[in-house]
């Protein structure tokens, strides 16, 4: 690891040709150059994010309000899941550096063991990111709502379960008095988006009208993100008042009062660009992780085949290691600037 790099060589010899002034091999040097250029790409993306955020400061979503869910556990866990992802990536970086260390001792078994661990960690991270994306795209049960005064609010709290729709006016498929119990949430959200719920009466796909039976919501809180006639940015409205305002908006029978989840055009969390940056930055990073896993697998096959052992050194492991640590490094910055601050 230190080896030649720390040897004292006089400058005439060092810069006089036949030796690398950096005391490092060609391959490793080129990997460093690639990483610098890649780091500039990520730097550019994150700084562009900073620019956009600073020109829409008030409307920008807050990390711990947006990312507060855990798989299987629901919500109320601000940033814990991303922290877990960060931890997974750090640990896989550690196993990688242990693989490199084993390589320096020509310990083939050790290299294999730690590289397998690294690859598993990488898969866990990519999987976590898939969950995170899916959660971001589907959004919350409440969505972002445009209130009657024209202000926009994100909604926190527990959404009471929808029990059924009881048909009160027959349509093409449902007779009067029929009770619909399938796909309720999806039908409900779709009807809200297109403005087909009026005073608690939902118009279903087939034109039938039904009464919604729904459990009460708990701890609802509206956080105003865009000024309206009476509500200003940053105002928080809680309890019964919040419920009244929310349902007044979504049961008004007017379309486009609520946005659920996210796509490239709109999202329930904040300005349009927020969703775009989320998809681009975490997507580009996820793509790096994924290619890192693939490269690690290829190198692992080389290790198992004994290619590097015959060569006399495991520098290929060190080079993929550099790339893998770089992916971890980028995530450290994404974590801070996208989720924390």
């Amino acid at each position, binding site marked *: *690891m230190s*080896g*030649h*790099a720390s040897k004292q060589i006089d400058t005439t010899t060092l810069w006089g040709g*036949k*030796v*690398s*002034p*950096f*005391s*490092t*091999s060609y391959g*490793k040097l080129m990997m*460093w150059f690639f990483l*610098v250029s890649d*780091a500039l790409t990520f*730097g*550019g993306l994150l*700084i*562009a994010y*900073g*620019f*956009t955020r*600073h*020109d829409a*400061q008030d409307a920008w979503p807050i*990390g*711990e309000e947006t990312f507060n869910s855990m798989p299987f556990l629901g919500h109320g866990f*601000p*940033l*814990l899941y991303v*922290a877990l992802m*960060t*931890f997974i990536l*750090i*640990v896989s*970086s*550690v196993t*990688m*550096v242990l693989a490199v*260390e*084993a390589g*320096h*001792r*020509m310990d083939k078994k050790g290299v294999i063991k730690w590289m397998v661990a690294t690859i598993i960690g990488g898969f866990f991270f990519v999987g976590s990111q898939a969950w995170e994306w899916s959660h971001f795209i589907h959004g919350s049960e409440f969505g972002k709502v445009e209130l009657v005064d024209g202000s926009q609010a994100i909604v926190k709290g527990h959404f009471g379960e929808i029990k059924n729709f009881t048909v009160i006016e027959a349509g093409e498929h449902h007779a009067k008095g029929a009770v619909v119990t399938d796909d309720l949430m999806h039908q409900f959200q779709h009807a809200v988006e297109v403005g087909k719920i009026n005073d608690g009466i939902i118009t279903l796909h087939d034109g039938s009208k039904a009464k919604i039976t729904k459990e009460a919501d708990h701890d609802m809180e509206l956080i105003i993100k865009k000024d309206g006639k009476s509500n200003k940015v940053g105002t928080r409205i809680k309890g019964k008042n919040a419920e009244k305002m929310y349902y007044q908006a979504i049961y008004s029978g007017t379309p486009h009062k609520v946005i659920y989840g996210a796509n490239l055009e709109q999202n329930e969390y904040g300005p349009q660009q927020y969703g775009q940056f989320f998809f681009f930055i975490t997507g580009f990073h996820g793509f790096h992780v994924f290619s890192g896993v693939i490269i690690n697998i290829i190198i692992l096959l080389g290790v198992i085949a004994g290619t590097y052992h015959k060569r*006399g*050194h495991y520098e290929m492991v*060190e080079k993929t*290691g*550099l790339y893998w*640590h770089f992916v*971890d*490094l980028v995530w*450290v*910055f994404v*974590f*801070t600037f996208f*989720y*924390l*601050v």
Partner: protein
Amino acid sequence: MERDDIIEYSLDAHHSEEQGVLLRKKIWKVTALLTIITAVEVLLGAFIKQGTSIWPLVKWSFIGLTLVKAAYIVLSFMHLGDERKVLRYFILVPYFLFVIYLIFILLTEGMYVDNVLKSHGG
């Protein structure tokens, strides 16, 4: 023909079992440090809300802690700290020059655009 003017730097990277024990100890220390920093960040983020009076302090400590984490990853895990000084500067100096310039210019512009949009009812 075999070239005789290339030094196999890759072979110089080997170390003994005893050195390995020390290196592994160092790796686990860095791991513990990185984990603790991440935990501290999450706790701060969970308990101190944006918009409170001490938030700016928390925000800057996040950025400081991130740079500490990044330094450990680059210098220890990526071994840049063990490389020759000239390589270290060759990698870091151009990057920091460019990035600091970019941060300065874009954040200044961003805040300016924010003001314009606000005062002209964007």
